């Protein structure tokens, strides 16, 4: 019996890291002036 298919919800990327820091200062609000 054939198996159920894999469902791709979102394709992967080879370049998931951006060229700029998405750093904790962004996430922890130190950029919020």
């Amino acid at each position, binding site marked *: 019996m054939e198996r159920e298919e894999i469902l*791709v919800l979102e394709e992967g990327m080879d370049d998931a890291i951006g060229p700029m820091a998405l750093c904790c200062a962004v996430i922890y609000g130190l950029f919020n002036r």
Partner: protein
Amino acid sequence: MKQYPCRDNPDRVLLFSTRTLAKLLVPVSVLRAAEEGSLTPREQDILARNGFLVDDPAEERREVLRSIGEAEKRGGRAFLMAVMNLDCNLACTYCYEGGQRGRHYMTPETADRLVRYAEKHFLELGSDVTIDFYGGEPLLSLDLIRDISRRLGASAQQAGRGYRFNLVTNGTLLTGAVAAELVPLGLRSARITIDGPPEIHNAYRPFVSGAGSFETIVGNLREVSALIKPGIGGNYTKDTYRSFPRLLDILADEGLTPDKIAYVMFAPVTETLGKHLMPEFSDGCVSADEPWLVEAALFLREEILRRGYFTPKVAPTVCMIEYRDNLVIHYDGTLYKCPAFIGSAGLDVGDLKTGLRDYTDSHNLNAWKTDECLDCAYLPLCFGGCRLLKLLRDGAIDGVECRAASLDATLEELILQDLRYSVKKDKAGATPDK
């Protein structure tokens, strides 16, 4: 790779690649086949293409070690944060400048050095330049922002490169007229801080006079949003975060609907290095895994997405210390690798006159290049975490700020939120602005 149960279907699992960010729903029978080595070519192709099947784990490790440098090379852009002053027209209860705050302004001489530094080290070497003007309140230094931007715009054009800038501002001085003047000079976006609905925002972020600043900021946002798409930031505490969704409703009622706002990102008020924090303020957090923070972060993200505003998806968070061409330039010309380090002795990395010095050891650049981290599935999302939090917690940047506990508590729900709302947006035909 992380694996989570599928809530609607026990015969499938959700696979998430922390390296490629792929999300797959995989039948349990396929997982079993992978273990037994009996995958079909098609299954093999999908799993390999998305980073779940790896021929050579040692090569995958090397890829992760190279990934930040390669991302920077691909981007071809230097990111500078220029701290234009440490002055402000607001009197926030938790002011991040704390004891450093005062009438300290970048001088025209330092601005001139900044321009020449950016020309010599970036534009002339083939990189584009982006500056985030920061403070204090950067728009108190509007003349210098104009001057720096005119000069760098011209130099970039001459070098065949690009120059643009962003503002990290409290929003009180960014009127439509100011934005209209700055857009031709390279203004692309502005991050404006609102700490919740009016009564809360005005208590935390009043003008120096004591008057509330909410109405001024929202009025400016309405004008500015006709020219650029501003981003909204906001700082919450344990006591205020539940009121923040009401802010989103007020913004929408004011015409600041999701199509006019680039993103919304709320963040907890964070402790800064001890001497900076306002002495009377003690609600800041020093850890990413305090239980209330986990609840607050997930709750607010859901409320933002539910209303159709954009907020970044789960993605690698890389400290700017790791990027060679990310630099903070203090108002006096001192160079740092993180905006939270400004003014801290021993954490400077040079100055505009003498240039950058080696900070590999002082900033412990290799902290995450250990077997323990390289074996951790979360590494591509954290790359050693936040150096500031590490410093606050342990008094030194002598290791990583491990994110495992925080990601254990939040990652599954964050991924599910991304899936829920990207599906909805796709169905509505609207793509989130990135």
